[in-house]
C-alpha cells in the first residue's frame, strides 16, 4: 500500500510530512512524493483514516491518494482533488476519467494518441494490448499498464548523504591526555564500525576539540591510503597530541571520518616486500616526532639549475609494470637496469672493474671559506671550519647562474683535491664570498 501527496510548490513540506509516516520515501518530483504506508493500519486504522491523517498533517493545500501500487497512487493524487483511496482491483475504474497528459511519456507517443482521439486513461487502457505493442512498442505497453493501474515497481528511495561524525561532551572538562584518548578511542571504534557496515574506509580523520576558555584545537590525520583500523588512528592521534597537546581542558570532542572506497590490493607471489601502510604511517609519525616533520619523506628534485634544490614529499608505492625493464621479468632472473649496466654491477667474471658515478656529500649550509688564489684566479689554499688545506690539484671554473628576473644567483665552481679529500667549492660572485659546497665521496 502506497500513499502519494501532490502539493505544488511545497516540496520541503511534502518531504517532512512523508517522513512522519515512513522512512521509505520517494521524492518523485518537486510537487510529488510517494511513500510506503504498509503497517500503518495498526496505528491509524483503515486506509481512509491513514489518508485523512496524512492530509491533516500536511498543513497546506494538496491531494492525497492511497493505492496498491506507487504509480496508481501518484496518478490519483495528481488527477483527483482531495483524498482518494483506491481499493485493490479498482485502479482502472477510478483512473479511467483522468486526462491522458498525466501519464507523461514521449511527445511522439502523446501526438500519436492524440491523432487516434484518445483523451482519457480509460480510453487508452481499453485499447487491445497486442495492437499497442505492435504500433507503439515497449513504451506504449508500459504506458497502458500505468493507465490501467496495473504497473508495479519498487520505490526509488532517497539516499541520505553518508556522514560519519560523532560528538561527545564529557560531564567535566578533560585535562589529561590519557582519559582524553580513552574517550576518543571509543568514538573511533564506533565510527570505524559504522564505516565497516557500509563497506567503506577513510583517508582523512578530522578531530575538533572544544577547549575551556581557549580557541578550538583541530587535528587532521591525512592518511596515504584508505584505512579502517581504530587502533592505528588512536596511535597516530596519541603521537600527534603528545607533540601538540591542547592548551586547556577539553569540553567537547568531535570526530569526523571522510568516507572513501576501501583499498583493494592483490599481492603477487613474487612481488618484492614493501612496508605495510598502517605500520609505516605509525613509524613515520614516531620519526616525525623525533626529528621533525620537515625532515622525513621522499626527496623530490625541483625543476631548476640552482644547486641543492629539492622538496620533501611522501613516498609512493611503485607502479608495477611501469618500468619496461622490470615488466615481464621472471622471478629467478635478476633484473639489470641501464644504470646498473653503466655502473658495471652486472659484469661477468673476468670483466673490467666496475665504474660507479660520483656522489656529492653536501655541507648544509655551505661552509664559508677563505681562499687564496694565484694571479690566474686558481685557488691554492683554503681555510674554513672544515680545515686548512693546501690545494694539490684543481679544475674549473665552471660558471653557473640563473633566475636573473627574480632571486638571481651567480656562482663560479671549482673541483679541488685538497687535504684528505676531493671537494667542490664555489665563489658566489654576487656577495663575493667563497664556500665549500661539499665533498665527492
Amino acid at each position, binding site marked *: 500500500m502506497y500513499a502519494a501527496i501532490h502539493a505544488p510548490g511545497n516540496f520541503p513540506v511534502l518531504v517532512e510530512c512523508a517522513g512522519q509516516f515512513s522512512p521509505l520515501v520517494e521524492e518523485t518530483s518537486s510537487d510529488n512524493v510517494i511513500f510506503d504506508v504498509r503497517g500503518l493500519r495498526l496505528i491509524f486504522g483503515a486506509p481512509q483514516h491513514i489518508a485523512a491523517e496524512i492530509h491533516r498533517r500536511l498543513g497546506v493545500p494538496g491531494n492525497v491518494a492511497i493505492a496498491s501500487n506507487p504509480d496508481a497512487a501518484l496518478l490519483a493524487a495528481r488527477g483527483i482533488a482531495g483524498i482518494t483511496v483506491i481499493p485493490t482491483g479498482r485502479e482502472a475504474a477510478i483512473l479511467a476519467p483522468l486526462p491522458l497528459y498525466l501519464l507523461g511519456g514521449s511527445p511522439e507517443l502523446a501526438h500519436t494518441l492524440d491523432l487516434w482521439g484518445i483523451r482519457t486513461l480509460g480510453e487508452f487502457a481499453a485499447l487491445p494490448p497486442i495492437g499497442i505493442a505492435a504500433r507503439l512498442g515497449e513504451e506504449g505497453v508500459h504506458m497502458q499498464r500505468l493507465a490501467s493501474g496495473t504497473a508495479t515497481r519498487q520505490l526509488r528511495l532517497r539516499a541520505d548523504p553518508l556522514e560519519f561524525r560523532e560528538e561527545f561532551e564529557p560531564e567535566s572538562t578533560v585535562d589529561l591526555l590519557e582519559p582524553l584518548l580513552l574517550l576518543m578511542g571509543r568514538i573511533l571504534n564506533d565510527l570505524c564500525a559504522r564505516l565497516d557496515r557500509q563497506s567503506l574506509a577513510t583517508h582523512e580523520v578530522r578531530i575538533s576539540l572544544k577547549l575551556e576558555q581557549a580557541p578550538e584545537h583541530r587535528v587532521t590525520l591525512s592518511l596515504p591510503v584508505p584505512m579502517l583500523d581504530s587502533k592505528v588512528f588512536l596511535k597516530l592521534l596519541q603521537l600527534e597530541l603528545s607533540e601538540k597537546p591542547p592548551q586547556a581542558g577539553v569540553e567537547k570532542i568531535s570526530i569526523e571520518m571522510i568516507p572513501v572506497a576501501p583499498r583493494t590490493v592483490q599481492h603477487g607471489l613474487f*612481488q*618484492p*616486500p*614493501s*612496508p*605495510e601502510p598502517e*605500520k609505516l604511517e605509525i*613509524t*613515520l609519525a614516531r*620519526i616525525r616526532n*623525533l*626529528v621533525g616533520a620537515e*625532515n*622525513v619523506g*621522499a*626527496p*623530490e*628534485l625541483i625543476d631548476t639549475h640552482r*644547486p641543492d*634544490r*629539492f622538496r*620533501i*614529499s611522501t*613516498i*609512493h608505492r*611503485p607502479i608495477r609494470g611501469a*618500468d619496461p625493464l*622490470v615488466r615481464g621479468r621472471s622471478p629467478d632472473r635478476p*633484473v639489470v*637496469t641501464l*644504470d*646498473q649496466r*653503466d*655502473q658495471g*654491477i*652486472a659484469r661477468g667474471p673476468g670483466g673490467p*672493474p*666496475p*665504474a*660507479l*658515478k*660520483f*656522489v656529492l*656529500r*653536501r*655541507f*648544509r649550509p655551505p661552509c664559508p671559506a677563505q681562499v687564496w688564489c694565484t694571479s*690566474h684566479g*686558481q685557488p691554492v689554499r683554503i681555510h674554513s671550519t672544515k680545515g686548512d688545506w693546501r690545494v694539490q*690539484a*684543481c*679544475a674549473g671554473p*665552471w660558471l653557473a647562474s640563473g633566475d636573473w628576473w627574480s632571486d638571481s644567483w651567480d656562482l663560479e*665552481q671549482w673541483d679541488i*683535491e685538497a687535504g*684528505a*679529500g*676531493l671537494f667542490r667549492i664555489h665563489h658566489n660572485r654576487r656577495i663575493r664570498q667563497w664556500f665549500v659546497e661539499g665533498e*665527492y*665521496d
Partner: protein
Amino acid sequence: MLVALPITPGFVPRQRTDFLDSALGPIPRGALTEIAGPASSGRTTFLGSLLAAVTANDEFCALIDVDNAFDPASAAGVRLSQILWVRCGGNIDHAIRAADLLAQAGGFGLVAIDLGNTPVKTVHRLPLAVWFRLRHAVQNTKTALITVSQRVHAHSCSELKIQLARDRVVWRGKLPGRLLEGIDVSAQCIKNHRGEQHTFYVRRDPCSR
C-alpha cells in the same frame, strides 16, 4: 605412513634467501653490513649504487642521514620517490632510534645509516648493544642494513665489512680545461674473518655539469 628422511651431515638451515647484487659482490639481506673509509673514498657512491639497485627492483629504501649530507641531484639511477630520507641534523641518537623503528617496521629492501661525516669518537661511543639490537631487528627479514662511516664499529654484529680506500685521483687535461675524471678505489671485503680484495672506479657523471 611416516617416512624417515635422511639428514645430510653438516646441514645448516638457511636463514636468508637472497642477496643484493653490488659492484663488490653480494651484500647480505637480513644482516648488518659496514661500509667504512676515509673522506672521498667512494663510500657514498657505493651506497648510491645499492640504493639504485634496490629501488630499480621496486623495493623501498630508507636512508637515515645523520649529517644531512645526501645530495638527491647527484644520486644517479636512484628512484627518489621510493627513498625515505630521514635527516637527523647531526643527532646520532635520533638516527639510531629512527633506524630501529624502520628496521622493526619491516618491508624495506635496504635501511642505510649514513655516519660518513660523524666524528669517529662519537660513533665509537655507541654501546655494542645498539648494533646487536639493530642486527636482531633485521634478522630473518629481507632488509639489508648498511652503515656508512669512517671506521668499522660494529665488531661481530656486522656480517660483512667493506673497507674502502682511495688509490688515486684521475684528472684529465690541463688547466684551464682540466676535468676531474674520477677516483680509483680499492676495497677490502671482510666476511667471516676472510678478506677479499676488489677494485672499482668512481667516475664523474658527464651530465652532472
